[in-house]
């Protein structure tokens, strides 16, 4: 304990909310895009891990963190493409394919990532918004990464896209009714594949954030279900990108609870606090799901809400 006493915890949770939320934000934005087109990609957990590995490796090899982010987005979009193409075939279960992609993505990331556990890759830059304060903890908490800001902008941009652009309308139509989309002359499978691909790219960027900023290194335990939680978070956010932003902050704060208690000197029961984000996700799912009424805002063709 230091002179800040009990205040270290809320400061750490605030900083954590900003730091930890970024991967949630990117994965959930990607998932919103995919689900709005009527498909669910549960494999984003695997995409997150492969994004983390590819991003780290590319940043290490090229010396540029931004090229790492680009490579991660590319790897993510390839995974999305595979998912999208497979799901375009008749009678293929998109949920099960997601599980398979989760296993394959994790496997490939661990397979190729073995050589990158030791080397140190360049970090992504951060902007010190805490310059006005002389409390080091607060400065650390407000050291905001550029990707977080990009993610926030992307959330609003995506919201605007769904609301007032032609692309957004096309995705929504495909997601709400395959028949209506066909009647309009759209090709639902093609649009869904592109939406899944773009969603994968978002998840890949989320992964690059994990390995290139926080925690900032590549190892096999880098993601522990963040990708999956982000998928659950989309249901909670009612398929609204801006709500995803808020939900990601909330989940980031919950995720920071365990580590910040540990750093504040609580050693008893901190394992249970590590479970906090999962319990929160589950609680949110229980509170927001329903058996009797259709979920507001849910795309009509989505398999999990049918």
């Amino acid at each position: 304990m230091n002179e800040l006493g009990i205040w270290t915890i809320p400061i750490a949770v605030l900083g954590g909310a900003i730091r930890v939320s970024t991967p949630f934000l990117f994965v959930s934005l990607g998932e919103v895009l995919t689900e709005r087109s009527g498909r669910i990609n549960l494999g984003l957990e695997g995409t997150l891990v492969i994004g983390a590995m590819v991003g780290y490796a590319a940043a290490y090899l090229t010396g540029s963190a931004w090229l790492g982010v680009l490579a991660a987005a590319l790897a993510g979009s390839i995974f999305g493409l595979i998912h999208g193409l497979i799901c375009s075939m008749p009678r293929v279960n998109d949920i099960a394919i997601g599980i398979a992609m989760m296993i394959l993505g994790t496997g490939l990331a661990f397979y190729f990532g073995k050589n990158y556990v030791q080397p140190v890759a360049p970090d992504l830059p951060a902007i010190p918004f805490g310059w006005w304060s002389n409390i080091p903890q607060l400065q650390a908490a407000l050291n905001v990464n550029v990707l977080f800001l990009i993610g926030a902008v992307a959330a609003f941009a995506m919201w605007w896209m769904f609301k007032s652009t032609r692309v957004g309308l096309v995705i929504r139509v495909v997601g709400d009714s395959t028949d209506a989309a066909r009647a309009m002359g759209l090709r639902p499978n093609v649009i869904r594949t592109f939406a899944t691909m773009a969603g994968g790219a978002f998840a890949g960027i989320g992964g690059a954030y994990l390995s290139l900023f926080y925690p900032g290194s590549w190892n096999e335990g880098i993601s522990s279900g963040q990708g999956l939680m982000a998928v659950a978070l989309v249901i909670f956010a009612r398929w609204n990108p801006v709500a995803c932003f808020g939900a990601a902050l909330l989940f980031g704060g919950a995720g920071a609870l365990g580590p910040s208690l540990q750093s504040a000197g609580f050693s008893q029961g901190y394992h249970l606090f590590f479970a906090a984000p999962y319990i929160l996700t589950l609680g949110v799912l229980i509170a927001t799901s329903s058996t009797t009424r259709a979920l507001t805002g849910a795309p009509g063709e989505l398999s999990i809400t049918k």
Partner: protein
Amino acid sequence: MSGQTELTGKMAASPKEWLAPVARRAEVLVIPLAALLAGFAIFSIFLLLQGKSPTEFFSLVYRAGFGTSFSWQNTLSRTAPLLFAGLCVALPARLGLVVIGGEGAIVLGGVATGALGAVMLGSSGYVALPLMALAGVVVGGLWIGLVGAMRYYRGVNETIASLLMAYIAIAVMNHLVEGPLRDPSNPNKPSTLGLTDGLRIGDIPGWNVHWGLAAGLVCCVLTWVLIERTTWGFAARITGGNIRAAQVQGLPVGRLILGFTALGGAFAGLAGFFEVTAVHGSANSSLAAGFGYTGILIAFLARHNALAIIPVAILLAGFEASSGLIQRRMDLPDATMLVLQGMVFIAILLSDTAYGRFKIFAPERWKSA
């Protein structure tokens, strides 16, 4: 399907009469096998791209997994938890539920077993072991049963919920074995108190394989009987086919969902029981060895048929048994098996699209010439 009955009448006269039922049944056997081989083929290409030899890989798997009686025993002793884990996925799947968090029930079933064992260290195995097994079964059953309850009463997606609960289960295990249940005399690995010899499950006489294998095989057969030969199983299969239709028919959909998820979880809990009593001798983090996740692939490869789970589980156990040798001999990372599993999984799911496309499996579409 609709025209099938009238056509079978015509078929009766044809000389291919005996072939028709064989062909119909062959589809569910040939397509998954072909998909399995396709998965192996993709993986072989992957190895070739790395400059590694697929021939060497598969011959090492054969040698370490199935080549000698020693390797068979190694494989079979890894089969037990996979059988249970496969059942934990297959049972809910027959109702159309994709439950993938069996790992959580294995872990907590093992912790319950270890915790009760630590209290009953002085008791006779005849008293303590059934109670410990019961503890594992009850905890595992409640854990996955809870997933079923959330699904039925609140409409919570069971796939996401079960996986989240697996993460929670592992956190709870870490808390318990490093906190309240920790054996203070063991400074190295946080574990529950070591079980005395009387509370350990031994090997099947004459084999180097513990009794968990026999229990797993029995559970697979019993599950097959339950699903294919009882009214409960029939109701479950109807529910899995079309849940609305089942509700309209007045089938007890809620009880089926709760019962089947709880039963699946109970099997996973039993896997935890055998891992603790027969393998590790105490509950610790080795329980989270990923059996639950391999079980997902096993159930899908077996098309959720409890009897088919047996050969598939043995096959995948053989791959796991050979993992160490392959890492050493071929200088491949341990994640190689995960890559293989992922590729086989995708191939098997892709094969779903092939059903009903081949004339050879549909006697009613054979030319009458």
